[in-house]
């Protein structure tokens, strides 16, 4: 099965491991990720200002491309997923934004939110199936792993519809499928401190330490994430309390595929 894929700028640079391991695992699981053509950075943060249009056009272009290439758009970085999914909702439900974006873009046919945005974790769960992943595992992860959701996959849940925003389970189910023991801890859906290091270097340090301390107290030996910024904050601002990896790195380990 082929699926249009939006990698995003960070996955081509500092977060190459996330992109590379995800592609190898997808191939091993029978999914071919086809990188869309001429994508641009999505801007990393969804702008809530109701008059923001230009900042959403990159997402709309990617969505429109995917509309004509299979109808689904696969994302991997949590931030890209958040921006693209929320922009897609605007194109579907906000007539004003939809009109103004289309008025500018002059596409062959107006884009109205037809594409289905799918995060890689949703693809694993709903397209491949965790049972099939379990069958494909050759090196079970016999460790206690804490899932770190952060904010962007879950919130706002009305639009993201990813999982229960207060008590998510998809990454824990993923950990079970690859033979690990999931550790649930209270700070798994609390913010790591995001981008504010430019304004307040202390805040991401406090937040990231809190997340990792909470995971460690509950017995986690390592933590996994889908977001390059979460990974950075937890690793660099989190005092090495626990090792932090991309979830796809553990998947690659379990499936025995090597980069």
């Amino acid at each position, binding site marked *: 099965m082929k699926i249009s894929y939006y990698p995003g700028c960070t996955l081509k640079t500092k977060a190459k491991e996330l992109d590379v391991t995800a592609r190898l695992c997808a191939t091993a699981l029978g999914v071919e990720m086809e990188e869309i053509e001429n994508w641009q950075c999505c801007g990393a943060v969804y702008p809530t200002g109701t008059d923001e249009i230009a900042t959403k056009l990159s997402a709309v272009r990617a969505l429109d491309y995917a509309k004509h290439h299979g109808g689904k758009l696969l994302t991997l970085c949590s931030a890209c997923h958040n921006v693209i999914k929320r922009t897609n909702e605007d194109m579907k439900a906000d007539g004003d934004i939809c009109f103004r974006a289309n008025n500018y873009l002059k596409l062959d046919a107006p884009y109205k939110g037809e594409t289905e945005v799918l995060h890689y974790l949703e693809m694993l769960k709903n397209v491949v199936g965790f049972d099939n992943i379990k069958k494909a595992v050759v090196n079970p992860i016999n460790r206690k792993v804490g899932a770190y959701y952060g904010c962007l996959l879950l919130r706002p849940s009305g639009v993201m519809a990813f999982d229960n925003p207060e008590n998510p389970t998809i990454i824990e189910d993923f950990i079970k499928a690859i033979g690990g023991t999931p550790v649930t801890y209270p700070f798994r859906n609390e913010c790591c401190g995001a981008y504010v290091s*430019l304004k307040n270097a202390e805040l991401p340090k406090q937040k990231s330490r809190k997340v990792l301390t909470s995971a460690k107290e509950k017995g986690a030996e390592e933590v996994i994430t889908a977001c390059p910024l979460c*990974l950075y904050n937890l690793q660099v601002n989190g005092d090495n309390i626990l090792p932090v990896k991309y979830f796809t790195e553990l998947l690659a380990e379990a499936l025995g595929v090597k980069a």
Partner: protein
Amino acid sequence: MTKTERIENLNRLSGTDVRKCMKCGKCSGRCPAFKEMDIKPHQFVSMLGQGKIDELLACNAIWNCLSCMACVERCPRGVAPAAVVEAVRDTVVRAQGANGIKAEDIPPIVDEYIPQQLLVSAYRKYNK
């Protein structure tokens, strides 16, 4: 612009109806940046409702909001405090010469691991 026009513009830009707030404080109770905010999330909502926008436009909290959407998620009345914070921040940084970060601020924080995502996010949030 008159004050009424400026208040109207903030309401429109936020896209949220601050009159629906019932002052329960759940948004601030969940805010991970609470201690760092000189004006708390629930106050953004109530102060915009009362038209106290000069205080809002001068606050420091707009730089510490993490856009984590926890306040939006928890509000039982469907208000989006984070969107009020962003409307205030947008209004501040859209003024000529009022960008929150300058190119010179970047090199000191860059280390070999910093993801592009952090810089792109910060530029999008703090600058126009």
